[in-house]
Structures are given as C-alpha cells and as structure tokens.
C-alpha cells in the first residue's frame, strides 16, 4: 500500500462481521440497545440516561399520575413539563428517546441487511436470527408508536435511505414483525434473556389490544394462558410473592414473559448495564446516595385503599385518603395509616413507618429531598435489598445501578389484557376470572409486608405482624356480570393501575382507553393541593394523546429542500 493509504485501527469491517459469529454478536448488540444506555452515564448517543429509560418511568408513570417527578424544583425541569402536560416539541427528552429507539431499530436492520451475505449459517439459523431481530424491531417500533403516533417506517431496505415519511400507520408493520417472530421462534431458548415464541405471542397480543382488535387478541390470549412458557421452559404463572418480580435474586421467573436483563458489577466499572435509566429513582439522603426522583403520588397511594370487603374504591378512593407524614419532621412522632389497604401498596410505595425492604422503616421527610415540592413517598419496585446488595447493587456511579430486571411484559399484564379483551367481548365471567387470578396472588400472605423483628436491626428478619392493616379479596362470583360491561372494564382498568403501578404503563393505558382527560384533570385538581410541583397541570385533548415528534428530528428530516416528517396534531 502506498504511503497515503492507511487502514483504520481498532475496528471491524462489514466483511468481518458477515459471519455466523459476527451476526451472533450483532444480535447481542441489538438486545443491548433495549436498555437504551451507554457508558459514562448517558443514553446511547448522548442525553441523560433517564431520558431514554426503557421503564418509561417519565413518559408512562410520571405523565400518568402514578408519581411525581420528585427531587427538587429545578432538577430535570423538562420532566416537570411532561408531568404537567405542558411539553412542546423542543423538549430534548423526546429527542433522546426517539434517537435511542431508532438506534435499536437500526441495529436490527443492519443484521437483516447483512444476513444475505453470510455464508456459514444454515437456513434455520438465518430464520432464528431474523425472528429475534424482528421481535426486537417490533418492540422498538411498538415503543415509538405508542409514544409518538406518527412514526416513519425504516427497515433493512432503508439503511442509507433513512429519511422516510411518517404519513402511514405503522401498526400493520409492527404486527408483521411480531407475527414472523411468533411463527418462527422456538418455544424455549438456550438463554433466559432471548425472546421466545410466547414472548412474541404476548407482544403481538399487546399490539392487538392497543389497536382494540379484540377478536384477534382473544385466541392468542387463550393460547398464551394455556400453553405459554418462558424462554427457560417454565409454564407461565404468577409468582406466589408479588415482590419476586422486583428482585434480582428471583429474575426470569415464571411471570417474566419478556424482560430487559440487567447486570451489576459486571466488570465494566460502570452502571450502563444496570438499569441506569432509573439511577435517579432512589430516596435521597439515604443509603442509596441519590437522587430522590420518582416519588409516588398521594392519588396513587389512595388507590390502594380497600373497603371492608377487601375491594378497591373504584371512584372515590381519594375520599378515603391514606394518612401521610406530609410536613412532619422525621424527628417528630408519626403513626402510619391504620385503615384497610391492599398489600401491594407497600411493595410499590415507600412510606414512613413501613419497612423499606430490609433498609429499615422508611424515616419519612429526612429521605425526601423537598417534601413540600413532591410529597412524602419513595419508589420501591426498582430498589434492591440490603442483604444481597453486594451482588445486585452496582456502586460504580454517583447514583446506584442494580441487577433488577426490567420486565417489559409481566404475566399479570398478560392476564389483565386478557381480562380486558374478554370484557370488551362481553365475556364478563371470563374477564373476572383473569382479574381474580391477579388479586388472589395479591392476597397471598407472602405478598404482605411484615414488621421487623427488631426495628433497629432491619436485616434481622421479619416478624409475623403485618406492617399495616392489609385487607384484600377477590371479586365475589358474578360481580362483573353485576357491574355490567362498563363496570367490569372500570374494575379491570383499576386493577391495572394497582398491579402495574410505577411500571411505566399508566399514561399509555389511559390514553388508549380515552380516559386520560378525565383521569388527569381529576388528578391535577387533587394532587396539586398537596404539593407545589404540578402547577398548570392539564391534558389538552387532541394534542396530549401523543408526545410531539421531536422538533430536532423534523428539522433533520430535510430531503431535497422539504421536510419528510410531519408533526403530530396539536403541536
């Protein structure tokens, strides 16, 4: 080679990776984009990790009224605008999320485009890779679709021609990807983290549910609930303990339909593979170090109130408010609420006087950055235990990472979608049966939080005394039929709120149900009397149903002098 011809250092060519081993590694890379994170505390590409958190804690839970942004007033102000519905297209959070999801799409597209050049793979191996890649692409587009509505379809034919218009509904394309995956993937996989046939089935069913294609969804749910197994081959079932879904020690259990695999202390010296997107969501001035975000709302806490029969107050739960320690110093005495409560509350929300896993009773205000601003509560589902923290906590950043998986589809989610489908098809008894499966698990004594044997030694074990007055029961036979279709749907939707609280689902659910305007208007009126962070909160009909296409992306879409992307309605 001549003096002026020099090959790049430290990288691979397209030829190098167009082999079986190269494709396998690219597929791992496509899975790796699920968490949206990279090294040095950033989302893939750039932007704060939380802006692209796959849990959607901002876009699903905070925006849906499950939680306050938390922390203090100007920490991450764009989240405040998302929380109060005042966001516009210049909000950089949407841009980060969009870019990260399209990186996921791109990684799968590259695999699909390189596959025809690979010589050392059998047809079956090719199909398997295609199916996993298309499952992942389906997921990335599903996220894009529910966030942004008008999404351009870019596939393996468009690797260089990536400026595609967003004027066509992409649901059919998403369905195609999941269908291909469902039909091509094996029921079990050698590795727990891989998508299998049943994960694809569940995601396809969820795609139908989002489109209200109830008759397409029903047969699929019938199959999943009778034949579905995890990638490891375990028959789908709810775990006896609700908390097992939020504990690294019990990951990839029978309830884990498809999860993003998180790992800690994995040799990177970083937390980028350890749920970095939720690094902010731990109590402040606490053993966790940072950052006091994602504080559950009073409205959510009140939702867990149960009546004498152990059933929720579907309408007027805020009239049965749960006592809080708002404005009470940690040094002043406080007795927690003594009324009836759904035990899932205390696995979902950290509140004063109740064991916070094995970290001690939550001390209230002293673990909260600014209680007047964002309320007295702490998140819990993403928090690791003290006894096994050396294994599952990752201390390699200024805020913790953890090995707790992010379960994208949990079997209880499948059951509640199945219930919804049955109710929509007016099979109310069948719907009730699904809901009661979920409530029965919640009523399992193993799902209660118990007081410590010794409050000063939280790692010394739990007593047999429940930490609160837990009263919960299944709906009595015929209850849904008695309520009628609308009543049953109301109960099912409320059950989703309780069961999947703080799991990034709420906003997308209330939008697809069309209940967002009423729910959020009521929520802002109630919650803004308690904290100062929700001023100006509103839901603008005809606009807020979708987040705006990021302005930056519209500006970057010029092709021959014209924009290829158009904005959503109302922006």
């Amino acid at each position, binding site marked *: 080679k001549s003096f002026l011809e020099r090959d790049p250092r430290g990288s691979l060519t397209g030829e190098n990776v167009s082999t079986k081993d190269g494709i396998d590694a690219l597929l*791992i*890379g496509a899975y790796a984009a699920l968490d949206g994170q990279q090294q040095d505390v950033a989302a893939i590409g750039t932007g704060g990790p939380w802006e692209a958190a796959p849990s959607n804690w901002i876009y699903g839970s905070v925006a849906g009224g499950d939680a306050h942004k938390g922390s203090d007033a100007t920490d991450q102000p764009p989240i405040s605008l998302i929380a109060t519905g005042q966001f516009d297209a210049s909000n950089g959070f949407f841009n980060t999320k969009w870019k990260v999801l399209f990186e996921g799409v791109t990684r799968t597209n590259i695999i699909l485009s390189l596959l025809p050049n690979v010589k050392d793979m059998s047809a079956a191996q090719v199909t398997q890779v295609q199916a996993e890649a298309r499952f992942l692409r389906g997921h990335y587009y599903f996220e894009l679709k529910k966030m942004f509505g008008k999404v351009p379809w870019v596939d393996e034919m468009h690797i260089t021609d990536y400026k595609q218009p967003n004027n066509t509904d992409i649901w059919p394309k998403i369905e195609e990807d999941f269908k291909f995956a469902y039909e091509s993937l094996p029921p079990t996989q050698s590795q727990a983290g891989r998508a299998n046939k049943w994960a694809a089935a569940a995601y396809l069913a969820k795609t139908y549910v989002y489109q209200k294609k109830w008759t397409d969804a029903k047969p699929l749910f019938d199959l999943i609930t009778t034949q579905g197994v995890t990638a490891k081959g375990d028959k789908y079932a709810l775990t006896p303990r609700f908390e097992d879904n939020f504990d690294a020690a019990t990951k990839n259990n029978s309830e884990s339909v498809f999860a993003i695999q998180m790992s800690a202390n994995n040799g990177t010296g970083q937390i980028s593979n350890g749920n970095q997107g939720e690094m902010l969501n731990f109590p402040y001035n606490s053993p966790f170090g940072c950052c006091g975000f994602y504080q559950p709302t009073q409205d959510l806490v009140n939702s867990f109130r149960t009546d004498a029969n152990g059933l929720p107050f579907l309408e007027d739960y805020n009239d049965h408010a749960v006592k809080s320690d708002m404005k009470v110093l940690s040094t002043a005495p406080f007795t927690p609420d003594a009324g009836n409560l759904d035990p899932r509350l205390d696995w979902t929300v950290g509140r004063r006087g109740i064991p916070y896993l094995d970290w001690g009773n939550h001390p209230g205000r*002293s673990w909260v950055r600014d209680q007047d601003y964002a309320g007295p509560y702490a998140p819990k589902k993403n928090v690791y235990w003290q006894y096994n923290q050396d294994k599952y906590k990752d201390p390699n950043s200024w805020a913790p990472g953890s090995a707790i998986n992010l379960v994208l589809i949990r079997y209880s989610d499948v059951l509640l979608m199945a219930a919804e489908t049955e109710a929509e098809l007016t099979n109310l008894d069948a719907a009730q049966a699904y809901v009661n499966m979920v409530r029965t698990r919640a009523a399992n004594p193993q799902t209660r939080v118990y007081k410590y044997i010794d409050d000063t030694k939280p790692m010394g074990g739990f007593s047999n005394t429940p930490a609160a007055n837990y009263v919960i029961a299944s709906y009595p036979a015929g209850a849904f039929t008695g309520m009628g279709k609308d009543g049953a749907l109301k109960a099912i939707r409320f059950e989703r709120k309780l069961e999947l609280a703080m799991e990034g689902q709420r906003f997308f659910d209330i939008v697809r149900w069309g209940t967002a305007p009423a729910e959020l208007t009521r929520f802002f009126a109630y919650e803004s009397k308690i904290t100062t962070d929700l001023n100006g909160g509103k839901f603008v009909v005809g606009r807020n149903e979708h987040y705006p296409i990021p302005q930056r992306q519209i500006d970057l879409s010029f092709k021959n002098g014209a924009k290829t992307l158009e904005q959503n309605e109302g922006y």
Partner: protein
Amino acid sequence: NPLPGVTVAVKNSGRGTATDPAGNFSLTAKKGETLVFSFVGYTQQEVVLGDAASISVVLSEKVGSLDEVVVTGYATQRKKDLTGAVSVVNVEQISRQPTAQVSNQLQGQVSGITVLGSGQPGEEPQVRIRGVNTFGNNTPLYVIDGVPTQNIVDLNPYDVASMQVLKDAGSASIYGARAANGVIIITTKRGKPDGKVRVTYDGYYGTQRPKGGNVWHILSPQEMANLKWMALKNTDPNVVYNDGLYGSGATPRLPDYIAPGGLMEGDPAVDPSKYNVNPFYKNPSDLDNFYRINKANKGGTDWFHEIFKPAMITSHNVSVSGGGDQGAYYLSFYYFNQKGTLLDTYLKRYSIRSNSFFNVGKHVRIGENLEFSVIDNPRITALTEGSGIGMAFREQPIIPVRDIKGNFAGSFSTNGAQLGNARNPVAIQERTKDNRGLGNRLLGNVYGEVDFLQHFTFRTSFGGEVYSASNHSFTYPEYENAENNKVNSYTESATSGYNWTWSNTLTYSQSFNKIHNVKVLVGTEAFDNHGRMVTGTTQNYFIFDPNFTNLGTGTGTVTNNSNAFTDGLFSIFGRLDYSLFDKYLLGAVIRRDGSSRFGANNRYGTFPAISAGWRVSQEEFLKHVSWISDLKIRGGWGIMGNQLNVDPSNAFTQYGLNKGSSFYDIGGTSNTLASGFFRTTIGNPDAKWESNINTNVGFDATLFKGKLEISADYYKKRVKDLLFTPEVSGTAGRSNPPAVNIAEMQNHGIDLSLGINDIHITKELVLKANATLTTYKNKIINISGDAPYFDLEARRFNGNFIIRNAIDHPISSFYGYKTVGFWNTAEEIAAANDQAQKATNNPNAVYQTGIKLGRFRYQDTNGDGIITDADRTFLGNPSPDFSYGLNLQLDYKNFDFTVFLYGVQGNNIWNQVRWWTDFYPSFAGAKSKTALYDSWRPDHQNAKAPIQENEGSFSTNTVPNSFLVENGSYLRAKNMMLGYTLPKAVLQRIGIEKFRIYVQAANLFTITKYSGIDPEITGGTTNFGLDEGAYPNQRQFLVGVNVGF
C-alpha cells in the same frame, strides 16, 4: 557624531572589538577580509579591507523596520518586499508577560490574533488567527525552525528569536494543507559567529494574589435562611414553616449543628462520643453506618478563598551562546514553576535546548535545533458545575470546611435539613494532591544547506517530535456530601507518539541588472504521524497510600482501554517572488497535498495563491514627500486547505464493540456480559479538503523617518467545503456519522497595527509605543443538508440548549427567550392571556407557560400573540466586535517603564453561575445577594431577578433566557514593569555586560461591567463564552533580573 560601542568584527574569523567613547577602534586584519560594523538602531555595514591603514565608516540609522529580514514559508524576505499579510512579533515586548506559554504572550500584541486563556497555570489558550475558520480544530500551524507542529505549550519563551504570523493566503498558502488556520513561524536563537561567548541569565520571582472580597456575592447563613423563608412564602402565602435546619418560627433561626440536622448545643444527638466516620472506608456499605457531627458555620464559609490562596511563581533561564567562522552554538536551560492560586494546581517546566550549525567549507552548512522539555502540570477542568470552582459557588456557606473531628464536612444532611447536593470544594481539590502527570517532548530537526552554481541553494531538513505523557490519579471515596462517590479507584494512562517531517527545497535567486529580482523555490515534503494511548482503572484498594496504589494492587474491577492512530501527508510546492525596480512586487505560490485522511476519490488537493505589492513611495511623485519614508499597497488572493477535521478512518463504515452499549447479559446471570457488536461509524469515501478562499488588501507605511509605522489589512475569507460532522436524522441510528464537506462560513475583518519608535520627549526621556486592533466578523453560511442549525450546551436546561450555531449567525451564538421585564400586575397577565386566547381561538390558552406575578415576561418574537418555542431568538455572541492592545514604553536614563493594556469590546458572556445563585429553586445551594435583596416583590418591581419561589418555572429558570447574558467587554492592565539597568561603566569593572533589575505587576486591574469573576472566558470552538466557574486570572507581583556576561 562619534559612536561608542559599535561592534566591529572580521567576518568569519571570530576576531572582533568595539569602538571606544571617541568612536575609534583598532583591529588586526588582512587585506581582502571583510569588516562588519553593527550597532543597535543602525543598518549593519560591511567593508572589504583594501590597502588603507585606517578606514572611516559612516553608519546610517535604520528607518523603521523595513530592512528587517522576515522568515516566511520556507524562505526569508525583507520586510519591505512582503506582499502577504505577515505580522512580525516584537519578541522582546511579548516576553515581558510572566507566563511560560508563548501563545499566552501573544494576546493583544499582534493584530489579527485572538487569544483566550484563563488563570490556570499551563492551560493552553485558544489561539485563533483571523477568527474562527472551521467548526473543528482552529489551532494555527506552528512551524518551529522549519518543523510543523500543532502545539507549542512546551516551547521555552526565552529561546524564541523571531516570530512571524502568516495571516493570509498570499503568505500562508505555501503550507497548503495545513495553512487554513494561519501559520505562526518561530525561529529559535542561534549563536552569533563573532567569536564571543555570551552567557545570559533571566529570572524572576513573584507572588500571585487571587481576587479579594465576596466574588460571587454570596449570602451569609442568616441571609440564606431569610431567603428561604421569603421563597416559601412567595410560593405559598399560607406556608407553615417547619424546616429541618431553620426551625418553625416566623423568623428562621440558625442551628448550632447542621448534622445531625438542625440541632442545638446540648442535644444528646450531638454528643461527640457518637461520632463515627472513617474517611478511608473501603466497603461502600460502611457509609450507611457513619455518624457525622458538623457544627454550623454561622459566620459563613468563604468557599472561594478556602480554595484560592496566594501562590508563588518563579522562572529561571540560562543560556550560553557563541560561535565563529566554523559554526555557532546556542544552549539554554529553563526552569519554570508556577503554583496555581487554586489549591493543588501547578505548572513545573524544565527544558533544555541545543541549537548549532557548522560551516563545512564556504558553501555547505549543517545544523540542528533540538529542544527537550518536561512538564508536570496537574490541572482541573473549569467552567463546569462539577469542578472544585463550580462547587465553591454551590456549597452552602453554613457548611464548615471540616467536621468536629477534622474530617471533611459537607452537604450530607439528616432530619430534613436541606443542605443541597454540592460537594465540598476543599475536599475535591485536596483529594487530587497525589495525582501526578508527566509529559515530555523532544522537538527539533537536523538540516543541511548547499549553495551551488552561484544562484542555487538546496536545503534538506528532517525533523519532528517524539513525545510521551503519563498520568495517574486516585479517586477517594467520599463521605461528607449528600451524593457521594463510594468506590475507590486508581487510574493510570499513558500516551506516546511521534511524527516526522522531511522537507527538501531548492531555491534559485538572481538579480538582473538590479532591475529584476527573481526568487524561485520548489520543494517536497512528507509527514508521517503515529500515536498510541493506553489507560487502565482498578477499583478497591486495601490502603490508599500513593506508594501502594498501582494498577496491579487493587482487588476490584479492572478496566482497560487503548487506541492508536496514524496519518500521513505528501506534498509538492513551489513559489515565485519577483520584483521590478524594487517597486512592483509579485508573489505566487502553489502547493499540492495528498492526505491519508481522505479516501482515494479526493486524496489530493491543490492550493494556489497570488499576491502583489506596489511600493508607491518609490514612485517619482512620492519620492519627494519627505514624511513618507515608505508606503506599500498590497493585495492577495488564494486558497488554503485544512484536513484536521476529519478522522483518519472517515472513509470507512466500521463495526465495533463497547461494553457499555453493545454488551448484554443475555443469559440472565446478573453479573456477566455477553459481548456484542454494533455499527460504530458510517463511512464517507468522498470527503475532500476544506478550502479557505482568502482575499486580502492592505498597506504598510513608514512615516517620519520611521518614527511611525502603520500596517493595515482588510480581509475576507470564505471557508468552503467545511468538514463537518452534521447530526443526522435519528432514523439513521446512532453510529457516528462521517464528516462531510457541506458547511460553509465567512469571516471578514480588519487588522491594524501602529508603531511609534523612539520619540524623544526630552533628550533623555524616550517614548516607544505600539498599538494593535483586531476585528473579525464571523457568519455561518451553511451547515448541512439535513438541518439549518446545531445546538450545544444544555447545561441544566436539559434538552434546551444555550448555544445555537445557525445559518446567517456568528458561531457560538446564545439562543433562548428574551426577557422584557416582569409580570407586575394581575391585569397584565389577564390581558396577555386574553390576547393569547383570541390569537389561538382557544378559550383555555395561556400566553406564556408558567405565567405568574413577578416572573419574567418573554418577548413575543414572532408576534403571534402567544409564547411558544418559536419565540426563542438570538441573544448575543461571545465574539468581540474588536480587541486591542496598547504597549507604552518610556525610557529615562537607565530606567525603563512599560505598560501593556489589553481590551476586548462588544462580546457577550453567558453567566451560568448566576443561574445557580440568582434563582432560589436552582438547587438548594448558595444564593446571591441579588436573590435576597434585588428580586421582584410587589413593593420592589424594579428588580433585577425574578420573584424567588420554591418551584422552577418556564418563566424563570428552566429555559435559557436573556437574564443570564451579560456584556463581556473589558480593559485589563496586563502588565506594568519598571526596570533599572546598571550603568555600563559600573558593570565593566566587574566584567558584566548587562545587569537589569525590575519590578512588575501583571493583571493589576480590570475595568469591566461583567459581574462574574473574570470576563476572559474560553471554551470550545463552537461553544465558548459560557461561564460556569472560571479559573480567574490573578494579579501577579514580581521582581526579576536580566544579566548578561
């Protein structure tokens, strides 16, 4: 008049003498030998000895600097023959600035150069020749004794003999591929072949004083408490005070203890026996059991002065030089030591230089220039909120530096005492004290020159640099802050590399009948560059003793990384200089460069330039105008190239792996990762050279027999095919896109310099002065096919950017909402909302998100009756309208007094420090006097800051707005110096040639309206002028001596 002290030497012999007070001399010489007479201020004269026993010589006074020989690209020219825009640096003048960096010394001294630095020892300043020329690397090309290099940080300023700045294409295009950012040619000192051995010593010692007073206007602890009460009341008029720190009374009270929060003396919880802190804990979970006891510092901690202290500076340089007809040598040793005013920052430098040349017969010369330098220079990254400086304006003043047992105190709090989340700045700095780095470089060349056939000279030079640097640092676990790093780790890194340049030139020079003067040069040059970097980190050390910690002695996670690079250039070039009647001058240059950074499609670029000059003063009609000694009009056009802004692998689509973003725990193990690949970069095989098309017109005038010299230039540059890595649509994925030649920008401006030479105010009071003026106006013409702008610097505005680089605007422009006062009454708000509702046909419309009494009212820029993101506008930019320097020197008998003033006018600064201190809700850190005393209240509507509240808002602090933009103009007394030279008569008795002693004050005062700590704010190429805690320039007071033997 007889001239005493004139040097008389026999050429090429080493024999010489000097004239006595009567102007007489005697010397032994043979017939045919040449005597050389030289004297400062007079034109050197040579006389060939004939038969006469005595000769008498009349020396003529120099007229200005016309005959000065100037080193330009691969050649030398007399100043009067120059046709390009070349600034000749007054080396003696710039060397008065007490810094070890030559580029710092250039600030304000040369027209056409903008230098932005900071007070941090060893920090390389931004040097820009004629503004910003590219979105990427704007560093000029330095050519030291013929060796091109990108940096001169380690060049010993005392070694510089001459320095020329080539500013336009006419002068710089000969460096084609690398000329676009301008070229600075430096020649280092050589020995004089006059038979004498000279020894010089230059040294100074001094003290540096940080700025005094309350530099950020921070409140006292009691005032902080009062502000909190005010903000809470403003947020909720019915507030019930119940604060973990300040109690629950109507007036806040300061506690005796801040940890445990809010307690008073005597409380059992502050019993010192409960104290439990192990500052060197190893297990992160130990932190959970610590019991901290911190007293409140009710008087307030002055964090700035806790980390900024007076510091020493000293410099010593010794040189030995000499030579004769066989050759000459120059040897120097330099030691420089500057402590930073910021704790644990400093610069130590050592360098030795050896320059020599040998005459092999009459027509062959062989020589070498070599410098070896060593730098030890721990620094911080300033201008960001996370630095020690950034924390010093964020850490609350009630926090003491240390706790009751002498360990660090900090923002850790309990009992709901809100102490913010800043980190202890003293701790940050002290924890760096064992971090070390050492860099060294060998830079130089060997060369040979042959004269042949009378008019030809062949020169070959082989030179380059070999460098390496290593750093190691230890990260201590923290325990005192609200947010602590809990992991101890050790990091070591090393870089090394080399490059060589081999150039060969052939020069032909002939004069025909003294009418035509022709000089032709052709040459080739090859450049080869290689480097490597390696870094590793290990966690979890048994002890933190710096003698123990290394990459092998940790027990925890090990990470390592390395990379390598290589690139090369090959060039051929030629130049022609022609002058007719010494009156009409013409220069032409062409260079063809090939670069390995480009794909085969566009590997080569050609860069031509032509320039011409007309010495009007030589024309008959001006020859008789006695006050015009010389007047020359110049003009030139040419193209300069740039290839720095393209990665050597730009042409290739590449795949790679990264543990953070492409590895995945596919097996669900919780603590291992399967390795995965991803596409890392998209290639562009079509990238080509940036071309900087440059037009320059100017004149040089020498007036009043050289008493006044003026040089002025107007230039216009159009930079085309700018290599820019545009952001691409998100639908392309996040692989690094390639650099493409799409962007374009334009600069125009005026360079003006003015010199006054030796004006005798009285017989013994002599004035010298010179002034420079530099202007540049930058405008972006095009950015990319994808989008008309790119944004940078979100800082705390997440996703809303402060800086927008947009078409038709200068680079690094500030962007956001323009504030137009406050919302003073409910009626104003109602009227605005009413207007918005009409404008949008929406009965629920609100004029401005977060509209509320006392908050900012934003300008409705697009006039649509409602504030949306379309109302953001350009709020100024950090490029000055002009900058200027003024040197004055007064000599009186043996005293000399110099003043150097430097000023910048018409620039803006984005003062992000005030975002932290002027808005109560911008985190619970230290706040300013403005927040408490000059914020909006119903009874104080004519306020500076908006109402203080406990919630952030679009209408106050959560989006970039013009509140933070300030005028950054300033005038600084960079240097004042008073020197005294001992009379020659005294010195001769003790055998010393020169002895001068001086006192000096640098940065004595700065006149500015800027409210921050220092208006000189640096930054990146496309994002500068953003102040978030600058390392300020400090006053320096020095005494020094210059001695010559």
